[in-house]
């Protein structure tokens, strides 16, 4: 199979350089990239139609972009494409937004952080940073002098004009400016400080009466520069950022980074640690889904349901609290195992929680899932087809509600997931209600996983011995896990140092938000909030 793909690539672009690293890596020149991606996406036998990750890297002499593509039918089939330009003054690459919608925001992010502009991307504004930000932070020669970018407390008017660079049919580049909204649009700002944007998302929404005409997503109100900070921290130190990305899947995110480092330096993680990790991961998932459920019901106006959900969540938080001394940010996984062994009553507490939660799931079902108002507000609202889900790279419960089997735990089993039995919840409807039900069903599946593991936690160490200073050998490392919101990925480029050269997190929430303008169009303004609740994104995960 590998040979066939290589042949396909070489047939398309003869001068492509193919290496076999951790993954099959192909380097091409910018002009050929679009063609290659298109061929990979459209071929029948080995269709690579899911863009997992798009990472901008400052490789020193050149500014480049890495694409991780995989097949939506089999997520373990992966190929890495690389391209780059040595023009640091005015770096230009070709956009693949027309092939993958998810590339749009990612390319804008690369522009904001590395200054690479993408030809043919319809909207080339900076994504996280203000338009007047001086410098490109992820470049190695970035000047961090705070005087260049002083804190301003002056409110500025929003400018809804987007620049873009187009390539005309005769190969010329034209820069032009487009208005995002029409002149007489009634625009309201949902966010950045708004009760139900699940954080500091900013949707500039133009309305036609109550109906949403168009959404323009602004992000970066909590862009904290984690990736840049990570470049000057050691691997154990970086771990504490992962908790704070998607704070609701804190433990799962941390698991991903730990696994990535462990695989790179071949650390055998003790069995006991694996068990604790998976149990804690699943508890985290339940915790996250419960919060998603609560937040969504709250968005739909059912405050009481919100309180019920939070009440059940508190029991999980207590277990976390006793295990590792944190409620939300738990700092449990470390490289080589876990930081704390379980406490004496851990198994008892978890086992008491399982039947309790099952009882509550029935209550939720009676209380909200069949409520005629809730049904009217979620069924058939915010529809997303499978193809759209794949193109926007919407994974997790939301992707599975559009009938896309995208559970990393099934496709690329890690840790103990190939030893436990669980179902991947798929629904065909693709609407807000399906996403909502998927979460409740996934709670049930998580309970089932925990049930299988909780009695069999083996004795032994809970953490392997590691060196005091962890250095990753030179190379590129990817690791993907199934976080509560979808696929979470870690990409580390190491140059053999104790610090990563480039570290990138693939956040599931970014894909969820990028799909919002599509699925909200034509719905009511009240549904915009409800759909947001059903997508369940976490903003710090997007902004990083």
């Amino acid at each position, binding site marked *: 199979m590998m040979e066939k793909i290589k042949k396909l690539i070489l047939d398309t672009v003869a001068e492509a350089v193919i290496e076999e690293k951790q993954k099959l890596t192909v380097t091409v020149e910018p002009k050929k990239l679009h063609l290659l991606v298109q061929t990979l996406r459209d071929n029948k036998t080995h269709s690579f139609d899911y863009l997992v990750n798009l990472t901008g890297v400052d490789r020193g002499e050149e500014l480049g972009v890495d694409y991780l593509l995989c097949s939506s039918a089999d997520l373990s089939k992966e190929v890495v494409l690389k391209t780059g330009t040595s023009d640091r003054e005015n770096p230009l690459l070709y956009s693949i937004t027309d092939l993958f919608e998810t590339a749009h925001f990612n390319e804008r992010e690369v522009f904001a952080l590395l200054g690479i502009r993408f030809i043919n991307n319809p909207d080339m504004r900076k994504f996280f940073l*203000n338009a007047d930000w001086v410098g490109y932070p992820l470049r190695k020669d970035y000047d961090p002098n705070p005087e260049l970018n002083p804190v301003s*407390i002056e409110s500025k008017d929003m400018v809804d004009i987007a620049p873009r660079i187009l390539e005309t049919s005769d190969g010329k580049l034209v820069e032009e400016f487009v208005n995002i909204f029409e002149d007489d649009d009634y625009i309201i700002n949902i966010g950045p400080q708004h009760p139900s944007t699940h954080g*500091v998302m900013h949707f500039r929404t133009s309305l036609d009466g109550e109906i949403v005409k168009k959404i323009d997503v602004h992000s970066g109100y909590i862009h904290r520069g984690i990736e840049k900070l990570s470049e000057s921290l050691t691997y154990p130190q970086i771990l504490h950022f992962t908790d704070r990305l998607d704070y609701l899947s804190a433990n799962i995110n941390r698991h991903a980074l730990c696994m990535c480092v462990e695989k790179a330096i071949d650390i055998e993680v003790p069995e006991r640690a694996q068990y604790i990790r998976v149990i804690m991961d699943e508890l985290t998932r339940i915790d996250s889904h419960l919060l998603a459920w609560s937040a969504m019901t709250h968005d739909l106006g059912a405050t009481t349901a919100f309180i019920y959900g939070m*009440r059940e969540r508190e029991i999980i938080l207590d277990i976390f609290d006793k295990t590792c001394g944190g409620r939300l940010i738990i700092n449990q996984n470390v490289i080589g195992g876990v930081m704390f062994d379980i406490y004496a009553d851990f198994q008892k507490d978890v086992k008491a929680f399982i039947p309790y939660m099952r009882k509550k799931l029935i209550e939720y079902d009676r209380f909200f899932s069949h409520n005629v108002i809730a049904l009217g507000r979620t069924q058939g609202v915010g529809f997303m087809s499978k193809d759209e889900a794949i193109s926007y790279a919407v994974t997790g419960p939301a992707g599975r509600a559009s009938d896309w089997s995208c559970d990393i735990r099934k496709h690329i089993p890690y840790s103990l997931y190939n030893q436990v039995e669980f179902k991947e919840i798929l629904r065909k409807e693709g609407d807000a209600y399906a996403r909502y039900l998927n979460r409740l069903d996934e709670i049930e599946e998580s309970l089932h996983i925990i049930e299988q593991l909780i009695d069999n936690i083996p004795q032994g160490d809970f953490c392997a011995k590691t060196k005091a200073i962890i250095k990753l050998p030179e190379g590129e490392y990817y690791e993907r896990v199934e976080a509560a919101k979808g696929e979470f990925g870690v990409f580390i480029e190491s140059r053999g140092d104790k610090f990563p050269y480039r570290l990138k997190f693939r956040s599931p929430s970014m894909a969820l938000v990028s799909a919002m303008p599509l699925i909200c169009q034509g719905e009511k303004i009240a549904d915009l909030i409800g759909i947001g609740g059903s997508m369940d994104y976490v903003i710090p995960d997007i902004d990083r």
Partner: protein
Amino acid sequence: MELKDIHIKGIPTEDFKDNEYLENYIKELEANGVNVILSKVDELINWGRSNSVWPLIYATSCCGIEFMSAAAAHHDIARFGMEVTRNSPRQADLMIVAGTIVHKMAPLIKRVYDQMAEPKYVLAMGACAISGGPFVNSYHVIKGVDEIIPVDVYVPGCPPRPESLFYGLMQLQRKIKVEQFLGHKQR
């Protein structure tokens, strides 16, 4: 007025931290001199104000979730009469800054603060709001919300547990109880 007159249900005054700040505050106020009748009325007003703090949650990240926990059944912020979270800054008394504030957010938080009606208070919840916390060295993070707006109470933690937040809110109640509305010193 003396510090021991400030009564908070459940915690004796001497168990509170940072009592010297309030002592200094009282001394400062007393230097201005206020007559007794006015100060009795003040006490009533401050009783009302301190027991009816309606928060506006400026939640940007993790700490916001802990606030939600605090508002939910297990901890129940309503016991303090603070469950009336107002989403409109005009109607709120207390801004709880829960989360990292970055450059892009700075003008907005200032604006929301300006939109609040007097008397208004700010509580910085968690390491990010106090000092930038884990991201203090970042290019895009503001090192403490007190660089933009005045902060009354700092609640450390990352994130602080709901009980910590309640403790901070009681500290704030103590501060409000010391203030004078009819006297000279107004915020």
